C-alpha cells in the first residue's frame, strides 16, 4: 500500500537565529475552525469544554487549558488548536473545517522579537496593548496572518503556501534588528 509521507510546511526552512531572536516551527496536532450556527454558541462551548476542557474566548482573546487553545478568529469564528488530530463532533451545532494543513505556525521569540515583528506588522505590539491571552488577525509582510503573543515573543501563523516569503521577510527583519541592536 501507498505510504504518503507528511511534510510540515516549514521543514527545511527553520530554525533561524539572529541576535537575540529565534524563529522556530511549531506543529500543533490540529487546527480546526469552528463557527457555531445561530444561537448555538453555548452548546458549542459546552461541547468544547467537555471534549477539550477549554471554552470559547472573548473578542480578540485566547482561551487555553494545557495544550488546547481556542483563538478568536473573527465575528463568531474560532480556531481550535488542539493536542490531538481529530475533528470535534459538533457538526450539528457548528460549521467545522479542518485547517491543520492550511496554516504554518512559527514562534518568533527573544528579547527583540517585538522589534522584529514591528518591521512587518502594522498593529500595536506594545505589551500594554497586546499580550498573552490576546490574539490578532492582521498582516505580516503583506500576508494575512494570525499573531498571538507568547511568554517570550509571538506565535505567527501564515497560510502554508506563503511560507517561503514569510520566512524570508522575518529573517531579513531579524537581521536588520540584530545588526542595529549591536
Amino acid at each position, binding site marked *: 500500500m501507498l505510504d504518503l509521507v507528511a*511534510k510540515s510546511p516549514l521543514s527545511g526552512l527553520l530554525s533561524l537565529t539572529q541576535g537575540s531572536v529565534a524563529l522556530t516551527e511549531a506543529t500543533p496536532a490540529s487546527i480546526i475552525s469552528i463557527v457555531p450556527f445561530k444561537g448555538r454558541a453555548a452548546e458549542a462551548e459546552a461541547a468544547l469544554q467537555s471534549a477539550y476542557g477549554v471554552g470559547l474566548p472573548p473578542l480578540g482573546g485566547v482561551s487555553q487549558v494545557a495544550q488546547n487553545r481556542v483563538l478568536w478568529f473573527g465575528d463568531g469564528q474560532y480556531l481550535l488548536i488542539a493536542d490531538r488530530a481529530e475533528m470535534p463532533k459538533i457538526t450539528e451545532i457548528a460549521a467545522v*473545517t479542518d*485547517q491543520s494543513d492550511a496554516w504554518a505556525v512559527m514562534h518568533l521569540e527573544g528579547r527583540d522579537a517585538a522589534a522584529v515583528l514591528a518591521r512587518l506588522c502594522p498593529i500595536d505590539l506594545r505589551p500594554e496593548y497586546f499580550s498573552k491571552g490576546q490574539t490578532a488577525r492582521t498582516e505580516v509582510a503583506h500576508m494575512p496572518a494570525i499573531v498571538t503573543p507568547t511568554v517570550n515573543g509571538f506565535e505567527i501563523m501564515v497560510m502554508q503556501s506563503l511560507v517561503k516569503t514569510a520566512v524570508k521577510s522575518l529573517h531579513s527583519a531579524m537581521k536588520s534588528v540584530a545588526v542595529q541592536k549591536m
Partner: protein
Amino acid sequence: MSRLTTGGQIDRSQKIAFQFDGRTFQGFKGDTLASALLANDVRLVGRSFKYHRPRGILTAGSEEPNALMQMGLGDQTTPNVRATTQELHDGLIAASQNRFPSLAFDLLSVNDLMAPFFSAGFYYKTFMWPKSFWEKLYEPIIRRAAGLGALSGKADTALYDKAFAFCDLLVIGAGPAGLMAALTAAKGGLDVILADEDFTLGGRLNSETFEIDGQPGRDWAAATVAELAAMDNVRLMARTTVTGAYDGGTYGALERVSHHLSTPPKDRPLETFWRIVAKRAILAGGAIERPIAFPNNDRPGVMMAAAVRSYANRFAVAPGKAVSVFTNNDDGHRTARDLVALGITVAAVIDTRREAPYGEGYPVLKGAEVTDTKGRLGLREVIVRTESGQKTIKTDCLAVSGGWNPSVHLTCHMNGRPVWREDIAAFVPVENAIPGLLTVGAALGDFSTHAALATGQKAAATVLAEMGKTTSAEKLPKAEDAPIALAPFWHVKGTKGRAWLDMQNDVTTKDIVLAHQENFRSVEHMKRYTTLGMATDQGKTANMGALAIMADLTGRSIPQTGTTTFRPPYTPVAMGALGAHGAGKGFAPERLLPSDTVGRELNAHFIELGLWYRPSLYPLAGETHWRHTCDREVRMVRGTVGITDVTPLGKIDIQGPDAATLLDRVYTNSFSTLPIGKVRYGLMLREDGAVLDDGTTARFGENHYVLTATGGAAGLVMTHLEFCTQVLWPELDVSVFSVTDQWAQYSIAGPKARDLVNALVDDPVTNESFPYMSCGEAMIGGVKARLFRISFSGELGYEIAVPARYGDALARALGEQAKALGGGWYGLEALNVLRIEKGLLTHAEIDGRVTPDDLGLGKMVSGKKDCVGKTLSGRGAMLAEDREQLVALKIPGEVNAFSGGGHLFKVGEKMITANDQGHITSHCFSPTLGHPIALALLKNGRARTGEKLVMKDYARNLEITCEVCAPVHLDPKGENLRA
C-alpha cells in the same frame, strides 16, 4: 584653513579624510560635509538650476537650496545630497552638480547672460515652430540643461527597511521645546518618541551660546538627552525626519541609519522608513531663518545669519575672515556678538532699522540696505546704501537675517492653512490643523529659549491631562526671554540687477513682477508660472519673500495675498526607502504549490499567475520549443493520462442550515436541488449582471458544500460570499470558510485516469460506483482524501485532494504511477489547449463585461428564482442583437496562428473601427485537430457558423482568414467524460 583652534562640537582627535570634486580634504568627527568644506575654505559648491550661477552654502540645515552634492561614484552614486546635513565620514566622496566641464568654469553659465530672454515662463511663448522641432531639438536641449544630480541608471542595491512604531506622544524636534516636552511627558508616564533630523539632539542649543539654568545650552541639552535615554518609556530617534502627517495620528518618518558610516556592517539598512502612530504629537520643529532679497544676493559667501552662528559655534569654523551682517532684527546682532567673541572680525552690521542696537565690538550701519555685491566665484564686497550715502564694505561673508518663519510644514499636510501673526510678520500653524497635534516653541512663533521651554512643558502637561495622567511639578529651567525685535523687511527696493528669492530654481524678484504684470496674481499661479518653491527645498527660504513682493504689487496685505502651504514630505525621501523590500521578488508574496519541489526537479517552466508560481510546461530533454512540449502534453492527456496541480483553485467550504439558500442566491442556477455526493457546474454574476466567475460546487452533506472558484477569482469570490452573508443577508445561518490552503489538489485526466486513480486509492472506483460529476471521500495510503469526478479537458477526469502536508508525497506518487501508464505532468499551456479544444471557457472569456447570454449560457439563469445580478443581466443592451457572443474559430489547413490581439472583420471590408466584428479571446494550436483554433467574441456570433472572417492584429502585424465554427471541437456528446 578657517577652522578655529578651539571650541565647537567636533572631535579634533578624530580626523576624517574626504574628497570634493576630486580633491582630498580633511575634517573632523562631528562635521557635516558643509562645515568641513567651509573649514577648508571651499566656498563655491554648486551651480544654480537655470542660469548656472556660482553658488555657495547658504544654510546649515535641511532647507539648504544650494549645496546639493552628488555622493559616491559608480553604480551606487546618490544625487542631490544636502552637504549641510550629510555627516562627514572617512572616504566620503562628493562632487558638485549641474556644471560642465568644471565648477569654476561652467559653459552653461552663458545662460546667465541670456537671462533677459529667459524670464519666467518664456518657454510658453516660443519653441512652437516648426511643430516637429519640440521633441527633436528644443526639448532635448532643455532636458539636458535641466535636472540637478544624476542617477547611474543601474539598480540601487542598498538595503532599505521599514517599520511601524506606536506611542502615546510623538515629539517632533529635539530643540529646547521638544526636549522639555519629551521630558515632561516621559516623567508623567507616557510612551514617548522623540525624533529629530539632526545627528546630535539639541536643536539650536547646539549652535547658540544661550544658557539654561546657568549652564551652556548645549550642556543642558546633552544632560536632558542622557536623562531621556535612560528612561524605558522613551525612544530617541536621532537622524530621523518626520516627513509627513497623515490621518489618524499616523506620521511618516525617515531614519538615516547608515549614511554616516564609511562601511556599514552587513545587513544594516541605509535608511528605514517609519510609520509612527501617535495618540498625540507635539511639533517642536523650530523655525527657518528667511533671507532678504537684494541684487546679487546669491553669491558664495552670502549666508543665513543663523547658519553663520552654527558654523562658528557648533563646528568651530570661521565662515569668513571679515564677516558682515545684513539684518532687520536683533538676531543679526547676536551673530555679530558671537563672532566677535570667537575672535572673528565683523566688518559691519547693516541694519535696516533706524533704531538698531549699539554694536559692542563691531560697527553698525543703521537704516542701511545692501544694494549690490561683488565677487564672481565668491563674495568680495557689498555695496551699502546708508542715509549718508553709498558705502562699499570689503567682506567675504555676508550673514543675512530677515526674521524667522516658523516651521509650519507638517501642519499643512492635512490641508491646514497657516495664519498670519503680525508681531513676528510670519505665518504660524493654525490650531488643530492636525488632530491631536500641538505646536510649541519657535514653530509656534515663540522664539526665545524661555518660551520654547515653557510652551514645551505646557503642551506636554496638556497631553498628560488629556490622557488622564498627572504632571509632576517640575520647575521650568531658566533661560533668556528676549522678544524678537523685528521690522519686516523683505527686499531692497530701488535697485537694478536681479535679486534672488528662490536660489535653487533661480527665481528673482523680477520674475514675480512679471507674473503680476501678466496677471498670474494668485499665489498658486505665481508659483507655477515662475516655478518658485518647486525645487527640492519646496521654497522653505523663498516663498515668504515672493508673497511679500506680490502683496506689495497688488496693494494687499500678505495674508490677503495668500499663504504658504506645503505638502509631504518635509524633506525629500529616497524611493528606495519608501519602496523598501519592493525590489526583486519582494514586491508581492510568493505562493507555492504543494508540488512546487516536484515541478522544479522536473525542470518545469514556472509562470507567475496571481501570487502563485505555476508550471506552464514540463519540458523533456530534447524539446527545444515550447510547442513541442505543449503538443506532447496535450496528446498525452488525450492518449493516456496527465496530471496537473490545481491547488490554486479557490476552495470555499460552505456549511449551515442555509447553505443551499445562499448558493441558490449567488449562482444563476440551482444548488438546493443538487444531490449529496454530486458536483454541479455553476455560474456566478455580479449585481450588474456581468459574469463574475464559473466553477463547480460539490455537495458533501445536507448542509455542507464545497465551492470551487477559478484561481484568478478565488479571492474575489470569497469576498463576494462574505459580502452576501454579512451585508446582504446576515439573517442566513451559514458559514463560509476558505480551505484553499488546507488541501493539495491534483487533476487527473485522460483515458487512463481511472487506472491512475485506482493505483492510488485504497478502494478502487468504477464508472458505476463513482459516475461523472460525483464527489466523495477516499482513502489514499491511509490518508483521508476528497475525490471528484470532474473534467476540464473533455477526457475522463478526476480530482484528488489530500491535506497539504501530503501534497508533495502524493505528487510524487501520481508522477510515478502516471509514468507507468505512459502519462505524466502537464502544465498550464496544455491545460489551456485542452479547454479550448473542448470549447470550455478560459479566464480570458470572463472579462468582466460578458453576460451569461454572451457566453451562450443564458439558459443557466434559472427563471424560477432570484440571484445576484439576475435583474440587471436582463437590461435591453445586455441582450441586444449586436452584442458579441462566444464562438469558436478555426483555420483549417493553416499553419498561421491566431493572435490574442486580433480583431475580426468581414472578408473584403476595410479593417477599421466602423467595421469591427469582434475579437479573439483565447487561441492555440490544436495538436488533436492539427490546426489552430480560437475562442472569440463575435457580434451576433452564434448565428454566423460557417462564415469566413479576417483576423487582423495590427500591433503584431498579423492577418489571417478563419472560419466560425461551433465551440466544441471534440466529443460533442461528452461520451469520454462519462466513460
